[in-house]
């Protein structure tokens, strides 16, 4: 029999058992949708990590004070001077970006008054990597750093494209709220005891698009200032050594050279710290890879659960199909007596099953695409913005 006739008789049969057909198609739908969703999520996750790694730089090293290290009093700790020395010794490095933060900073801008800002002291190299922002005004430059200028860049937290239900329990940053009402660019802000000029505003990407938005604690608002200014004007007086930093981020510019520079920098810092290993240097890719490995294990366990579910529903479908066939033994006999070959019969049942499969698959596609559509849109926008900023920086 011709395909058109097979299709027609299959449709007739499906139509004759609407409930059963609908249930079969539905369970197929759910199974396939689960599969598609898992796959798209996995793919999305891998892509996110790729994006994050690309943003962070291929040869990224993170130097930070060793946690829980009891100093012998020989080392000054991890300092801005260390960063300068690394820069001096290895000018070929793409980025050497020291950073220190002052938490609980007092700030005042017009009617806005807050004691819980985060002041981040940075150098211009900070902007070389992890750039996901939209900038208004200008970034901090070498002159600001050299002069310890009282200038700052405010960070406006990303908004939501589509706000998830739990976001209302996530308080909006007070500073962001304020500057979204009144443009602070070029105006004065009181930080600690000094007046600063706002020379720039960095807008973070929408939270939906930024895989890292929850990783940095921004308090009631983040303010970027030159590191030298932070040391001179904002660090509390009880700080023993104002030169210390909480992190030096390095990017060699090349994944191949990361390991070699890690060793060199370690030797350099050990010498500067008089033998005290009060710091640690981590290869960012290793950090990412261990996170990725954890994620993978998680995904595998999800996949196993999904597979079990699909298997169970598959057996259910098989059972129904067999019951259908058995309940139609008589019909098969009649058709055989009328001249149907075995192939005719097999095709008849197969075309019914295929049609149900197609219907189920179509249903699955619809539900899966509506479920993953948002994350897909978000992903593509994210990589677009990453490419954008990448091009702008390089």
């Amino acid at each position, binding site marked *: 029999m011709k395909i058109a006739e097979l299709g027609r008789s299959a449709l*007739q049969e499906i139509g*004759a058992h609407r409930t059963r057909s609908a249930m079969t198609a539905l369970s197929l739908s759910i199974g396939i949708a689960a599969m598609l969703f898992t796959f798209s999520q996995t793919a999305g996750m891998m892509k996110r990590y790729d994006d994050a790694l690309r943003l962070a730089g291929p040869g990224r090293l993170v130097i930070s004070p060793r946690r829980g290290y009891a100093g012998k009093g020989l080392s000054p700790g991890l300092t801005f001077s260390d960063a300068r020395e690394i820069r001096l010794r290895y000018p070929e490095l793409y980025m050497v970006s020291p950073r220190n933060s002052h938490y609980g900073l007092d700030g005042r801008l017009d009617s806005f008054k807050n004691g819980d800002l985060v002041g981040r002291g940075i150098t211009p190299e900070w902007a070389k990597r992890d750039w996901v922002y939209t900038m208004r005004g200008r970034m901090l430059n070498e002159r600001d750093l050299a002069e310890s200028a009282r200038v700052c860049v405010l960070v406006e937290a990303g908004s939501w494209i589509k706000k998830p239900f739990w976001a209302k329990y996530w308080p909006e940053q007070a500073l962001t709220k304020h500057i979204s009402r009144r443009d602070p660019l070029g105006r004065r802000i009181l930080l600690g005891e000094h007046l600063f000029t706002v020379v720039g505003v960095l807008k973070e990407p929408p939270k939906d698009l930024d895989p890292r938005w929850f990783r940095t604690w921004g308090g009631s608002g983040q303010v970027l200032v030159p590191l030298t200014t932070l040391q001179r004007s904002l660090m509390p007086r009880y700080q023993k050594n104002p030169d210390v930093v909480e992190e030096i981020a390095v990017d060699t510019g090349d994944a191949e050279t990361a390991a070699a520079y890690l060793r060199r920098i370690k030797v350099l810092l050990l010498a500067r710290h008089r033998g005290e290993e009060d710091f640690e240097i981590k290869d960012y890719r290793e950090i990412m890879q261990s996170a990725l490995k954890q994620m993978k294990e998680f995904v595998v366990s999800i996949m196993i659960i999904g597979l079990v579910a699909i298997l169970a529903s598959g057996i259910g479908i098989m059972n129904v199909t067999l019951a259908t066939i058995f309940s139609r033994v*008589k019909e098969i006999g009649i058709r055989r007596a*009328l*001249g149907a070959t*075995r192939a*005719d019969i097999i095709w008849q049942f197969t075309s019914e099953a295929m049609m149900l499969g197609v219907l189920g698959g179509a249903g699955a596609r619809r539900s899966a695409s509506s479920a993953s559509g948002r994350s897909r849109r978000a992903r593509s926008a994210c990589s677009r913005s990453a490419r954008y900023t990448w091009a702008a920086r390089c």
Partner: protein
Amino acid sequence: MSAPAAITVENLARTYQGGYQALKGVTFSVAAGEFAAIMGPSGCGKSTLLNILGLLDRPTGGTYRLEGALTAGLGDAELTALRRARIGFVFQAFNLLPRLSALENVALPMAYAGAAVAPRLERARALLDRVGLGRKGEHTPLQLSGGERQRVGIARALANKPALLLADEPTGNLDSTSSAEILALFKELNAEGTTIVLVTHDPAIGASAQRVLRVKDGLLA
């Protein structure tokens, strides 16, 4: 003899799984154009015999020649092709497909034979006319009376112009009026040259057959 006999069986035996011997070796032949009735008590093996004649079942012993050709060596596909082209089946329980209309039921064997839609519907309509159901082609089996159903069944059996018409108690479920109509139909078909072998308990039908094969306990009496 000029033409080979329509059916020649020699020592035909059928033992079912479990060892029950439904046919214990029957030998007879039916000439082309003959009208033969198979009669006998219930359970004696009539249906078993007819299924073998209709190539729906294979004998476990003996030989069966259809139009002179041995059927023993044929594969499933060849048997199906032969059955489709040469044999029409009429059942006691009609065995119409309930979801198809009378017309579609009659056209179905032609579909399996590979006929295109238009010609086969045309022929199905002609066949329904022939059995006096020209107006009821769109009815489903449930909307037809027993006698009408059996006439659809006969029209369907004639779809591929079979040389041999096999009927297993075709009037077993019908009242006497309908039975008489069906019998008249069979006689007409036989007069046109179709070989007919039918199983029946009805003495009237037996009387109008040219030959009666009496089966008892798996043997010809």
